């Protein structure tokens, strides 16, 4: 009797296991072991210049995966392709084992609802209030008004802005704006959260508070996060795994601790050296 209870207790304590064991929380089609996000052999060129040259990576559900590299390395293009904001010239994207990169029209819209995107410049709708911004993805998904109001209230509270819900989005500080953007990105309960330099426009203290928020959201909802950044501190603070990208190629990847302690690539060694000197 005692033995029989153990796996259940373990599952309740660990949010990652929770997500994997409750079937309706994961995608119904794929086997349970398929990664939340898989990128296979993505290439993209702008004119003669190859921005991405066959990039592959996969992120297991519930992990925070950092993509780091210098400006112009192809990080932003990669995250825009992975989040279906841009199309690749070749390769495939899978969300929980389902290919989404070829989706068009209605399918594309459905696929986009499975992912949330947080931008460097927040990109809030200035014609709307905080609540109005968070409500937009729900309106788009056809929720009714009462359901939207309840969900918005819940989300605004989640990011700690309940007292500012009716303010115009433009009248907030940078950190508050990014919180609104995170609430908006999570409105449709996506499986994956894409963050493109989400903290690069913020001061160090606000950066920490936003990272802590993302970390706690992952813990609570088993969210999978792909995080593009040029800040090593961001990777060190919240990422589980990291990939270093240089000239459109992933030059090395693995758990943060091992990549940081023994970088095998030239770019990796230089990035790590910079942090240690700073």
């Amino acid at each position, binding site marked *: 009797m005692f033995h029989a209870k153990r796996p259940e207790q373990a599952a309740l304590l660990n949010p990652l296991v929770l997500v994997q064991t409750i079937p309706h929380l994961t995608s119904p089609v794929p086997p349970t072991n398929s990664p939340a996000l898989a990128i296979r052999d993505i290439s993209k060129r702008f004119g003669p210049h190859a921005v991405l040259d066959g990039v592959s990576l996969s992120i297991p559900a519930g992990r925070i995966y950092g993509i780091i590299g210098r400006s112009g390395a192809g990080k932003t293009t990669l995250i825009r392709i992975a989040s279906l904001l841009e199309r690749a010239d070749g390769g495939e994207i899978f969300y929980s084992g389902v290919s989404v990169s070829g989706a068009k029209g209605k399918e594309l*819209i459905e696929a*986009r609802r499975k*992912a949330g995107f947080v931008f460097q*410049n927040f990109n809030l709708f200035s014609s709307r209030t905080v609540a109005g911004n968070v409500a*937009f993805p729900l309106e*788009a998904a056809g929720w009714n008004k009462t359901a939207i109001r309840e969900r918005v209230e819940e989300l605004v509270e989640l990011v700690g802005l309940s007292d500012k819900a009716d303010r*115009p989005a433009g009248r907030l500080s940078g950190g508050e704006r990014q919180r609104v953007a995170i609430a908006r990105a999570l409105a449709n309960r996506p499986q994956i959260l894409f963050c493109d330099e989400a903290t690069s426009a913020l001061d160090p203290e606000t950066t920490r508070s936003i990272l802590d928020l993302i970390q706690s959201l992952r813990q609570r909802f088993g969210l999978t996060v792909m995080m593009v950044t040029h800040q090593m501190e961001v990777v060190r603070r919240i990422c589980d795994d990291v990939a270093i990208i240089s000239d459109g190629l992933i030059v090395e990847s693995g758990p943060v601790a091992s990549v940081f302690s023994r970088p095998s690539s030239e770019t990796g060694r230089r990035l790590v050296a910079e942090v240690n000197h700073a």
Partner: protein
Amino acid sequence: MREIFDLIARPVLETILMVIASTTIAGLFGGSIGLALYFMSNERLSEHSGQLSIVKKVADRVINTLRSFPFVILMVLVLPLSRLIVGTSLGTVAAIVPLSIAAMPFVARIVESSLAEIDGGILDAALSSGATKARILFAILVPEALPSLIAGLTLTMINLVGYSAMAGVIGGGGLGDLAIRYGYQRFRTDIMIASVLSIIILVEGIQMTGNRITRNLKLKR
């Protein structure tokens, strides 16, 4: 004084009718053209923006050609069209046809450029929210561009007040017609002054209303 008022009341109403009717018609047609051009050329909203760039270039040329047409000439050129649409080429209603056509390319440009001003990131955010293009347009793009659209519409209406004065040439009525027939041809300086003053008041009124709406919209952001 009473006589001036009696003479001027009807032309004022005619001018207002011409301006409002042609702004509405130009807004509908020109606005749709502007929207189409914006959607066609935006790489985030159109999968084929690359291939459509030729269509866009042709449309740009046509719009610029129409915009550079002197209104007096345009008015004469579309006389047959007025006859076809409203049954006559004379009078206030007939004048609405050339006025609308003259304002259409202008409105198309205003709509297109107001939308194009919106930061691409806003579009990214709306797209990643999983919204259809129609919803993005009406729930995000139009509200975001509203101050600039209102400012553009104000400009259109003021231009149309000026154009409508020229419509007097084809018997269009309105304040311009009054100024020419009474003020100029019959040497009635008082009526000339009254007509010009009325036009100034109309223009000021439109500008002030436009400014106020734009300012209020911006205050709420």
